[in-house]
């Protein structure tokens, strides 16, 4: 078990290092000229060269890279072009928002997706199954921003018109100041993020459960006279969940994508909103910083998922 942990952590560090490398290459090495982008279209070559020098982009690549890594290891992510505050604190401010959004929707989609999948799998070809399958397909095909727009329209706009002001259209309230407010502002974003992914998980769980329920050892359990509920939840669900766990690990990457969209639609001041803003403003240090933090988050999340997976299925540890 320890060997497995060590290996997994080592791999995670390698991945993280590769990601920082990729980011570096993207921004500092690529043939396009970051400096000219910042200097603007009208800039003369002298201005561009000046910008380049000021940003330290005319130094040899290796020096730039070492500097970059040195800063990273010290937690220094640079300073925003826009307002000169340290990128680190800008990001730090927004982490709770994104975190709340991500965790809440993850919880929601797992709950909805898995239960819908189990429901459909235990009643195959009945109306419940059909409803689940069709609904899942519908939400699965929907781009998340579209769903966000629809939810925004229906549950914010329409409800407000009808005089029901339950769900605010934007803004964020910290959990510490008002849990109710926090939840209220996050409910619509949570559902937006969760519904599409829940559909994927519902299909996945359903398929996996159907496979497992057809296995001989389940038939044996039933023949032994075990109550159906126990057969399903205690025996079948455990093995059916392994592909779901794997999927969850992969989905962290897509989760961040969803977060960006949802934050933009619902005006949540999180990392996603910041990412888009900083790109539109060409505030490169913030862009870089956000990406790096996101990458680190994903690597850590993947490690955790793998470890959980290793606990659930000991065979994985041998590999």
């Amino acid at each position: 078990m320890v060997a497995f942990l060590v290996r997994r952590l080592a791999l995670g560090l390698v991945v993280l290092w590769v990601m920082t490398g990729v980011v570096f290459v993207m921004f500092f090495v690529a043939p396009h000229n970051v400096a000219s982008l910042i200097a603007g279209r009208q800039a003369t070559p002298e201005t561009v060269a000046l910008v380049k020098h000021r940003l330290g982009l005319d130094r040899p690549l290796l020096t730039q890279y070492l500097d970059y890594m040195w800063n990273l290891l010290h937690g220094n992510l640079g300073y925003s072009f826009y307002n000169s505050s340290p990128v680190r604190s800008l990001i730090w401010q927004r982490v709770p928002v994104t975190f709340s959004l991500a965790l809440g929707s993850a919880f929601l989609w797992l709950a909805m997706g898995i239960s819908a999948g189990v429901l459909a799998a235990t009643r195959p070809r009945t109306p419940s199954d059909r409803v689940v399958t069709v609904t899942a397909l519908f939400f699965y095909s929907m781009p998340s921003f579209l769903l966000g727009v629809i939810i925004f329209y229906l549950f914010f706009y329409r409800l407000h018109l009808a005089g029901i002001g339950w769900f605010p259209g934007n803004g964020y309230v910290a959990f510490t100041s008002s849990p109710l407010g926090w939840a209220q502002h996050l409910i619509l974003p949570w559902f937006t993020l969760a519904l599409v992914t829940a559909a994927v998980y519902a299909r996945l769980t359903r398929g996996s459960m159907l496979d497992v329920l057809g296995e001989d050892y389940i038939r044996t359990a039933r023949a032994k006279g075990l109550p159906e509920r126990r057969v399903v939840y205690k025996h079948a669900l455990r093995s059916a969940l392994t592909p779901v766990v794997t999927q969850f690990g992969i989905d962290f990457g897509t989760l961040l994508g969803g977060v960006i969209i949802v934050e933009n639609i619902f005006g949540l001041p999180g990392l996603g909103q910041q990412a888009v803003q900083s790109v539109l403003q060409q505030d490169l240090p913030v862009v870089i910083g956000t990406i790096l933090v996101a990458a680190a988050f994903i690597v850590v999340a993947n490690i955790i998922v793998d470890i959980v997976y290793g606990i659930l299925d000991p065979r994985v540890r041998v590999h």
Partner: protein
Amino acid sequence: MTQAPPTVEAFEARPVEDTRLIEAKGPWRLAWERLRRDRVAIVCFLVIVLIVLVAVCAPLIADLVGHKPNATDQLGGLTPEGLPKGPSWSHPFGTDSLGRDIFIRVVYAARISLLAGVVASTLAIIVGAVVGLFAGYIGGMTDSFLARTMDVILSFPFLLFGIALVSIVGPSLGIVIGVIAFFSWASVGRIVRGQTISIKEKEYIEAARSLGAGDVRIMFVDVFPNLIAPVLVYLTLLIPAAIVFEATLSFLGLGVIPPTPTWGNMLAESLGFYQVAWWYVLFPAAALLITTLAFNLLGDSVRDALDPRGERLFRQ
């Protein structure tokens, strides 16, 4: 004393007259027939054909309807208050904030979406299939390395990186296609690799080796035909994902930017007017949704046709 089961000697040689086949159709034929009988698949297919036709004939349609996609019309296209006009005979889908005809813009946007979807997916499939086949078959260190690389790529946050790239290079359709292809090839590769690994262990591969076939021949003549089915299914799922990705980037302002219409950026613009112009939101949204639904449903049907033991049937 129990009867011993009949041994081989009991069945003396009979002349071989039993050359009848037990099944007359090959696997592709059977799959095709299953697909043909699937009404949902047929509907989806027709919808897609319609969309493709519409996209291809966009200029013709523009002439028919009498509007150009980027032709702003402050006078005729807006209400006296300067707001978009609702659906009417001359503007079946209404107009947008600049008086442009939404119908023709939706039509032209289809071109972009389909282009992005199909081109990006095809690229991803080609690269992914080759790498996956190679990695799965060769095995060993090369395989470990390639598999890990694919896993790493898959754990990248696609959208975030796409956004980052756009920040450097500026938004364009080319970038969108490139980003989609770059992140998708790894998922194709993983699937192909998995399939190759399980195929590699089959006896008919061993048979090919015993005949003296070289690795390259085995890969392309024996392994590859067995990969076509899963790759095809994946293609039908990859295309709508690519379309959605393009729409999302454009929605955020980081893909195709106005005035070129794409369903994504039209939706972004429409958000400013949702209170007064429901048609502005509805029609691009509907177009996008119908397209992705059609592809996804078709993909499901294709998968069922190629492998009827799949999700739908409860295995005995």
